[in-house]
């Protein structure tokens, strides 16, 4: 079977790639395009480590076929900082020590950014429910939640 020739926009750049029908978007990002910031955890949509934005929504890239991304607008963790300037969420994760091993962090940052774009002033409960699909086995979540709440506050201009 021939490979699929796909054109998509990734972090603002037009990208072309060839993929097998069995490859997921996660496989394509990591193995074909070297966007290794997106992590593979469970590979079954339970852990959220592979979260990326696809056409304005946060999705598990392990549950998207690579061929499905034709014409899609994809945003990964690599596109979050503006050059050397970290996104406020990234700065707050460092400030609050909201990570230990770091495997869950890219997915949590992408999912948190998606939340704050929809709801700039979430309650702690709303943050916890929104991030229920992002598992972290290190931090116990508390520092993550504090970092997201603090980033939201700063982004609102407080």
């Amino acid at each position, binding site marked *: *079977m021939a490979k*699929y020739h796909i054109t998509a926009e990734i972090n603002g750049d037009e990208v072309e790639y060839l993929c097998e*029908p*069995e490859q*997921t978007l996660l496989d394509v990002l990591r193995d074909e395009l070297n966007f290794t910031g997106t992590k593979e955890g469970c*590979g*079954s*949509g*339970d852990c*959220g480590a592979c*979260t990326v934005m*696809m056409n304005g*929504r*946060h*999705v*598990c890239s*392990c*549950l*998207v*076929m690579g*061929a*499905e991304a*034709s014409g899609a607008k994809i945003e990964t963790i690599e596109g979050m900082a503006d050059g050397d300037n970290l996104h406020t969420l990234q700065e707050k994760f460092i400030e609050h020590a909201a990570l230990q091993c770091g495997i869950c962090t890219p997915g949590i940052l992408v*999912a948190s950014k*998606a*939340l704050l774009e929809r709801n700039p002033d979430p309650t702690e409960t709303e943050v916890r*429910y*929104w991030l*229920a*699909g*992002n598992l972290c086995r290190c931090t116990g979540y508390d520092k993550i939640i504090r970092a997201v709440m603090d980033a939201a506050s700063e982004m609102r201009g407080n």
Partner: protein
Amino acid sequence: MRYEAPESLEAAVALLNEESGTARVLAGGTDLIVQMRAQMIEPDLVVDIKNIDELRTISQENGGWRVGAAVTGAEMNEHAAFKAAWPGVCEGTDLIGSTQIQSRATIGGNLCNASPAADSVPAMIAAGVILTIVGPGGSRELPVEELCVSPGKTTLAKGEIVVSFAFPARGAVASDAYLRLTPRTEMDIAVVGVGVSLELDGDGTCTSARVGLGAVAVKALLVEEAANALIGTKVDDAAVAALAAATSAAAKPIDDKRGTKEYRIKIAGVLAKRAAGIALERARQN
């Protein structure tokens, strides 16, 4: 394996019908891709239906609503007017997986995956949803409770696709609710799920009701005896107690790690009672 993403229903039906091997419909992929990766299924052809416009829309129709099969849970919950009309159905879809899963998982996929514990299905049974199914022989309609047969099995014939879900028009004093029991508050599979939809007249007498019951049989059930316990009453304590008893009586669960048979039977009645209370309160506020 081949991947195809046709832009018309006719093309999708033809692809599925002409495939000599195993063909699967891809909507949100949150069940299909998991099953493919686990090698539970190895399709020769995957037909992505998300590029077909009529499967992607929510619209008003004959005083009710029509929702395309490839509409996602997130899209349903963000549609304020639909959510106001059918809060119980949106409650069901809102419970499916994480927010990431809701970005992708579709109402058609939740039904056609044919899990007895699918959270949107009891609420849609309660709502009285009628499916439009298109296949090589043309179009047909089917009550939603008649699609699934047993875990993973549906009554769809080769080449058939569930296209849309029609939610009927109803009176001003009407609403619905869905409740499920899970060991965790989020990201879990229903041990029992109950949807109740009801309509009242000007005196507060229940003129119609439907009850859908999930996760306690080989498929989600329509429980007519439970609904009959409410119809003609003021939805008072005696009626609600009869509703609970009839719902428990209809439950035919298995024992598994998520709940015992005895517990599920009891909880089916408890959830029916609570869901009826919420639907009643919502109806009175409409």
